[in-house]
Structure formats: C-alpha cells, structure tokens
C-alpha cells in the first residue's frame, strides 16, 4: 500500500486518468486504492447503509473507468470529481428510494463489534447519524461535504451544482437543523 501511495503521489491525476482511458488496469487499481476510502465514507454518511454505500462507491469508481476518455486535464483532480459523482449518485438513490417506497430506511445492525468502552461513543455517533439522516438530502450533502470532507463552500456548491449564495443558505439551514437535533438528543455533553 505504501508503495502504491508513493507511486500515486508521483503521478498526477491527469496522467493516471490518461492511463485509465488507455485501459490500464494497474492505474485503475492505483486510483481505487487511493480514493476508495473517500468514496466509501461519503456514500456511507449520505446513505447510512454499508451495502448501498459500497454499491455507490463502486459505481463512482466505475464511472471514472468508463468516462476516462472524456477527462479534461487541468481540473480540480480526481478526489473532488469522485466526491461530486458520489454525492450525486447518493442523491439519486435517495430520491429513487423515496419514490419507490415511503418507508423509512431499515436500520441495519452495526456490524462493527461493540466494546463497552466504545458504547457511549457509538451511541453518540448513532444519534448524530440519525440527525444527519433526518436532514433533507441536499442539506445532508452540504453538511457532509463541508464538515466531514472539509470542502470549501465554493467547491461543495459546484459539486451540488448550486450557486454559492444558495449553497450557503442551504448550509446555514442544515447546520441549524443539525444543531437543534443533536441538542435535543442530549448527546452534546457526552461526547468525548
């Protein structure tokens, strides 16, 4: 892994995508190893489901494989592009799920083993997860991109294909809702 990271860092995103466009499986494996965690993280926080998050993550990376020939060099890079594609796919999936079924997304058991010392933190995390899932889709994406993925507002707005002012308004409402939800859950003082 370490060697792959070094090799990825040595090659620019444009060169990697050019190789992927040339159907270089090694280059694709290099990108997948380097960005899979990012894509998975965004998808999981957006969807709250590990299985669906993996599907979305794989589809996002496959999009890069399929459309590498249309890559325009000199852009923001692979990571922002993958985040944007992942967020949009998550929004599509949420919208589709709401269209086909108005039932709540069934909560799955956390597959991670719970240790006593992590119980409290896990409960807090679950409460925050519930609050994030309670947000509207685009507000959820705005919070995830700006807070968890640390994207600037401008980049996040472009990912959601919004004007900056509109995105900032959306983000303001998302933060207020999330703050109120977390405070109502009573987990503020427990964390840490």
């Amino acid at each position, binding site marked *: 892994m370490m060697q792959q990271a070094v090799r990825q860092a040595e090659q620019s995103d444009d060169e990697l995508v050019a190789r992927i466009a040339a159907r270089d499986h090694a280059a694709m494996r290099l990108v*997948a190893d380097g960005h899979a965690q990012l894509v998975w993280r965004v998808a999981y926080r957006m969807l709250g489901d590990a299985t669906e998050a993996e599907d979305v993550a*794989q589809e996002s990376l496959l999009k890069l494989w399929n459309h590498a020939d249309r890559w325009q060099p000199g852009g923001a890079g692979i990571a922002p592009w993958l985040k944007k594609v992942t967020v949009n796919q998550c929004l599509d999936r949420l919208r589709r799920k709401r269209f086909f079924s108005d039932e709540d997304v069934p909560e799955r058991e956390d597959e991670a083993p719970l240790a006593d010392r992590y119980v409290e933190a896990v409960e807090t*995390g679950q409460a925050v997860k519930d609050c994030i899932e309670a947000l509207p889709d685009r507000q959820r994406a705005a919070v995830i991109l700006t807070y968890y993925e640390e994207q600037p507002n401008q980049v996040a707005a472009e990912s959601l294909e919004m004007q900056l002012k509109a995105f900032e308004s959306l983000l303001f409402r998302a933060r207020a809702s999330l703050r109120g939800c977390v405070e109502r859950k009573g987990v503020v003082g427990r964390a840490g």
Partner: protein
Amino acid sequence: MMAEPAFSPEIEKALDAYAAPPLPTGFSERLMARIASGDTGFVDAAAYMPLPRARKSSPWRRTSRIIGSVAIFSLATATAAAAGFFGDPVYVPGVSEALVEAKIVDAPKPVATPKVRTVAEAKPVKPVMAQPQATGSAAIVNRVTDLRNDPAFAKLTPRERLAVTGKEVRQMVSSGEATRQDVRTAVRELARDADPTAREAWRKTAAERREKRLERRERTAAIAEPQSVTEPQAIDSEPAIATTDAPPTIESAKLAPDTAEAIRENIRNATPEQRAALRNALRERRQLRQQRRTQ
C-alpha cells in the same frame, strides 16, 4: 475538522463521534473483478444507436417545413423592409387605421330631433293677412287701368275703346263683381283722376249725348202723341252710363207741364185696353227700377 467554526466545540465533538466504518475488505478486488469481467455498467450509446434510416420525409414533416420556411422568410423580409434594407421603409397601414378608413355601410344620417318649445319660448305667430282683393269700384278702376296699359287697347279708336271698356264693365256687373253703383263711383274716380283734356272731352261727349237724347225724346213724343201712352217719354230706356266714359247723368223725372198735360189727356181719352197696357208697362218699369236699386 472544519475551516470555519460553524459549530460549537461540543457539537463538533458529537459530530466527530459519527465516524464512517472502515472500507469493507476486498473492495478494490471486487471492483477490479467487475472491470475485468466487463461488468462496468457502461452502455456504449454509439453501439446501440439505431442506424439512420433512409427516411423519406413524411407529408406532415414536409408541410411543416414548407410552412416554417415561408413564415421565416416572411418575417425576415418584413423585418428587412421595415428596417429600410430594401430602400425607403414601406408604409404599411395598421389594422386600426384601416378600420378607421373602412366604410362598410353608410353612416346614418343625423335625425333631426324635434326641439321642444315651451309656451313661453314660442314666438307669437303673426297672422298672415290675405292680400285684399279689389272689389267694387276699385275692381272696375283696376280693370280699366289694365285695359289702358294694354298696347293693343291703345291702338283702338276712342269709340272702339269705349265699346271694349263698356263690355268689360257689363261683364263685371253681370258676374256680380260690381254693382251699378260701383260703376258710377268708378266712373267718377276715373274722371277725377283723368287729365283735364280728357275730362273736357268727356264732358263734351256727354253734353252731345245729352242733347241727342233730349232731341230724340222730343221727337219721339211728337211722333207718338196719340200712341205715346204705352211708352212714356219721361223714362230713359237706355242704360245710364254703363257704355259711356262720361260721368253718369241722371235724367230728371219731371216732365214739362204741357207734356204732362198732353199725356194725361191721352190717358183720359185712351181705351180700356190702352189703359191696361199702360198700367202693365208702368208696372214693368217700376219693377225694373226696383231691381236696379237692389243691385
């Protein structure tokens, strides 16, 4: 984690507690296996693009193209003409102007509404006086004046003029337009207004006629001395003045004493038949005189 402190530290701690689980193991291998197997979910649009058919444009499409082409051409030429591209802009009257000029039917004629007048506003109507028609002596004077103004009348001899005038006056009397008294009055007016020479001529003529009448009366009395009881000489049988231009002269009803005595003697010596005839003649004359007076 965030560039700008949007949340309080406590909230940030709570949000950080929501950590994404680690990437499932074998993620990259599964991904590469899908790529190797060709299960990339990519659909080559070009491969599934239907081949362009050798289409024959349908009538609807052809018609729409023609109509569209005509509309675009019309719009373009109208715009170019209005912009003066072809020279001076063509003046195209608008619909409203055409409607203003349009004359579909004749405009209704203005109906004169009767003006209601109050009694106070109404002007008093002056009674139209009929032109008074000349009657009586004036009619005779007018008629004689008209005859005198007639050139054909002027060409006649005095005797002929007198005859014509007398005829006209007699017709007026017989038709009832004038009476004999009117005739006398008219003669006096005409004589008064006549010039001195004409008046002198009339007097002379009247004097001559009077002399003739007296002579004729004396002669008649002398001839019909025995038979004169049936025709009293004191009564003038001729019309007084109707046929003369001279002023009327009324015969004196008084007889000379010897004439009256001779008449009485004749009546005393007359037979009863002669006396009856005389009475009848006198009655007729009396009646005739009365009729003249009434007229």
